[in-house]
């Protein structure tokens, strides 16, 4: 084990050392790759039937992923502390977008959620900006957080305002996700237990009211109660298809690309909200547990970043981003397994969707920036260390002749014989 005095000195000075979280970066790369494969596998049949081009959704998702990775690298190179200063303008811009979508947005799936033929859902970006804003707000309130009048009441008003705009679309699931993330941030920021309790109570009451007055929501809750008892006999066609897909998958799966339920007319929203069911059917219990494990590892790395962040804002921002992505994944999987009332949240990194891919990767970029303790500009030396961490050159060396097996064959002359 080599001793690096400079790093140690730096670590001593800061209490922690801050370098890019490579395991997190590798994990993200794995999630994106896995997700793209699944988008192709889940969407080709649906795409062919509906557009005549089997690659329709896959190619679009590739483009969005490329844009997303560029956005992630950009976010990674922007010092996360600058978001704190920009929190308010970003928030105002987001609220403007949300209001705009209510006025001119299109109605799809019974809700007004997007611009431009389904490729711009402002509520996806609202997730990021609300998390930034709440992190900034909580950091600036610091000492007074535990007082009801100064801590809880403004927090509730603030959250209520933002969430009500999204509820109005109506997108109850995203509002719920944002509320959950905000409450977790409030809790970790040092809220008194009674405040957390009160907030949860208030949130519960609000959703109780929404559910009571929205036939849309009420119907789903009723189907959920019926489904949790016997998921095989649910009247929700979507859920039944999803569960049958999981059951068909069994332990080892039907094999990649072999899902039957994805073939239209089968599992609805097959490449977006239902993609986990396709993973389960094609890769079996092993594949679905792998997805869960990847997200749990993401939670662990994200929380580690939060704990090692240089300041409170960084801690809360990392916590918020991690909580958002992990809860969204858990809720999506819970819906597909009939563990949670039916709702349409995409599975991060897997589900098809431009805005969500972009928003998720921006969030991850910010998280990665926090992991390296802020700082502007991309640290190129970090990249060179990454690529050459084993100390070997990456150029191929003709003299060494490739793999040991090939060298052995070459030595024994089997190549010559093969050619005869």
């Amino acid at each position, binding site marked *: 084990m080599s001793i690096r005095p400079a790093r140690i000195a*730096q670590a001593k*000075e*800061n*209490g922690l050392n*801050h370098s890019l979280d490579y395991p997190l970066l590798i994990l993200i790369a794995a999630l994106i790759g896995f997700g793209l494969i699944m988008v192709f596998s889940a969407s080709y049949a649906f795409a*062919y*039937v*509906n557009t*005549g081009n089997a690659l329709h959704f896959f190619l679009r998702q590739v483009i969005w992923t490329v844009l997303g990775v560029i956005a992630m690298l950009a976010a990674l190179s922007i010092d996360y*502390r*600058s978001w704190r*200063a920009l929190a308010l303008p970003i928030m105002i811009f987001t609220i403007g977008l949300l209001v705009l979508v209510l006025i001119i947005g299109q109605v799809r799936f019974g809700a007004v959620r997007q611009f431009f033929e389904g490729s711009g859902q402002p509520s996806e970006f609202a997730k990021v900006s609300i998390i930034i804003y709440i992190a900034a707000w*909580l*950091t600036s*309130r*610091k*000492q007074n*957080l*535990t007082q009801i009048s100064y801590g809880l009441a403004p927090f509730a008003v603030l959250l209520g305002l933002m969430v009500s705009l999204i509820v109005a679309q109506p997108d109850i699931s995203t509002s719920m996700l944002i509320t959950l993330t905000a409450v*977790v941030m409030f809790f*970790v*920021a*040092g809220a008194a237990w009674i405040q957390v309790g009160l907030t949860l109570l208030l949130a519960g009451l609000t959703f109780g009211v929404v559910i009571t007055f929205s036939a849309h929501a009420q119907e789903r809750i009723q189907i959920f109660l019926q489904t949790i008892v016997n998921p*095989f*006999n649910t*009247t929700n*066609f979507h859920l039944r298809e999803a*569960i*049958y897909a*999981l*059951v068909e*998958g*069994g*332990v080892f799966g039907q094999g990649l690309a072999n899902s039957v339920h994805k073939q239209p*007319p089968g599992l609805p929203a097959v490449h977006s909200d239902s993609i986990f069911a396709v993973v*389960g059917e094609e890769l079996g*219990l092993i594949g*679905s*547990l792998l997805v*869960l494990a990847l*997200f*749990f590892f993401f*939670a*662990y790395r994200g*929380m580690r970043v939060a*704990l090692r962040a*240089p*300041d*409170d804002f960084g*801690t809360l921002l990392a916590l918020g981003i991690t*909580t958002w992505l*992990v809860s969204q994944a*858990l809720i999506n*999987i*819970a819906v597909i*397994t009939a*563990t949670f009332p039916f709702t349409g949240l995409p599975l991060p990194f897997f589900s098809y969707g431009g805005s969500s891919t972009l928003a998720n990767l921006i969030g991850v970029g910010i998280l990665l920036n926090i992991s390296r*303790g*802020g*700082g502007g500009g991309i640290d190129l030396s970090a990249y060179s260390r990454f690529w050459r961490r084993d100390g070997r050159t990456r150029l191929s060396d003709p003299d060494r002749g490739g793999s040991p097996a090939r060298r052995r064959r070459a030595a024994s002359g089997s190549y010559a014989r093969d050619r005869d």
Partner: protein
Amino acid sequence: MSNTQGNSIFRLRPETLQTATPPPLAPLATDRGEKPYNRILIVLIGFGLMGLVLVAQLVRYQALGKRYQVLSGSAAAATVDPLLPRGGIFDRNGNPLALDSYAYEIKAAPKEIAEKDLPAVARRVAPLVGKSESALLAELEAHKTSPYLVLHAGAGPEVGEEILSWGVYTVTSTPKPVRYYPEGYLFAHGLGFVNRERVGFYGLEGRFDGFLRASTTTTRWQAAPQPHGAAAAALPDSPFLPTFVQQDLILTIDRVIQHMAEETLRAAIAEYKAEGGTVIILSAADHSLLAMASAPDFNPNDYGNVADIEVFVNPAISKLYEPGSVFKLVTFAAALEHGVITPQSTFLDEDEFVYGERVIQNWDKKGRGEVTATEALVQSLNVTTAKIAVEVGRDAFYKMVRRFGFGQITGVELFGEAPGIVKMPGKGSWYPADLAMNSFGQGISVTPLQMANAVAAIAADGVLYRPHLLHQMIDGEKVTTVEPQPISRAISAETAATLTAMMVEAAANTPTVALPGYAIAGKSGTAQIPLPDQGYVDDLTITSFAGFFPADDPQFVILVKLVRPQNSRWATWNAGALFQTIVRHLIQLHSIPPDAIRLGLQPDTESETP
């Protein structure tokens, strides 16, 4: 615990308290707060717990899923093939009530057809889809870049099979099973319907949804042995359709009697301007349902086109009503069974009988003076019936109510049966006055089928049976026949005979019911309908008549019920007349001779015994 003096919202280490706040954007600057390890750990544990629940669910579906399905009896539903036809439903004589047929969706893929081939394709396909050649060509050219174009949404088997036999992908034919109810409205409440996603709802379609989806299938698109099963005859003989073992239901319902019941009910509703009604006809021989008709009803072929989805609910088994005086039969059965009365016991029928702070009166608010028990039943006297119930006693009365099957489902093979509401003594909502009220059928809620089945128990020498409308379940080679199933003895055979004699008196003294030459046992009931805020309203009634015939050797048990008849609110008029019409029809349909001739023709076995 709030740290009012620190820079951090998190608790500070003592040695860092004196550190000044660094400039906000300095690299690696820190406010060096102690991080909230515990709270973040709590959040992580929360994620972990949620994750464990999901792992459990995934293991449940993916590792144990197939076994779980078998346990929950929905294995058939799990492997449902969208191309498989559902099993059929047939009446007791094999007449189809619900069947599947195939409709073929004819599609073209203009994008896959070369430009020069379009006229040839149009020429060949146009006559099959009923379009002119030029129109079809224009349509194909207009959609030249589309991956598919529907040419015919529901073609018949000749066209569909022809195109399937071509085996090309540019013009395709997709068979889709379609549910069809050949008799339309007939027995709609009992059948239910199948929705567009091929899921059965209500009635038998809902109750036997898993069974009716065929369980076994061979690979699609393969020539294979032809399907068997009663409904298979209705399906096209095709090498392209899946083969399957069909699962059919054979009912005890008689199409002719059901039709008669529906027609007479419809006529009675029109004549008496009622809002609705129910007719139930049970076979006294095996306690099977011959007819179960309710109005208003719906056409299951067109289930999406109803004004109110409440119409799907089967009133005969799901709608509760207060039975009124028909329920006096239970009171008299209890009294006879416990020796409290004989048909000749006398009672003083007064204008009013006060019990449990409740004033009981006869329908005309007049007492009859001294009457026998039989007269009390014939004239349907509430005052005397309440007195009898009080004499029988609370516990014995309610025990009899339960033994006749009230307050519990009958177990008929239908979706959504209601158990009724019987308030039991000792429960919070029961008051002593309820005993007197219940004795003549007010303050108690039953379903029409429960009431009919209780009367059937009197006809069956006092034994209560489970009513059934399923005769056979056919699963390929396996045939399960449903046998009459006794539940328990409600009353002794002697009590049943005595009560039958009293019912014959009651029916004979109801002019609308009595039929010369035939001994009918029956009892009328007129129940006021309680409104939520006004209590019982005199003018709103449910009239009913329940009984059986021939009284000495019961063949048919009949219950009729009319909701809110306008012309006369008394059951002895409208329900009685409907009851008699049904009896007349049954006599004709089954050629039942008058009692004198029937009994005269039978060898007199008793006199021959030494």
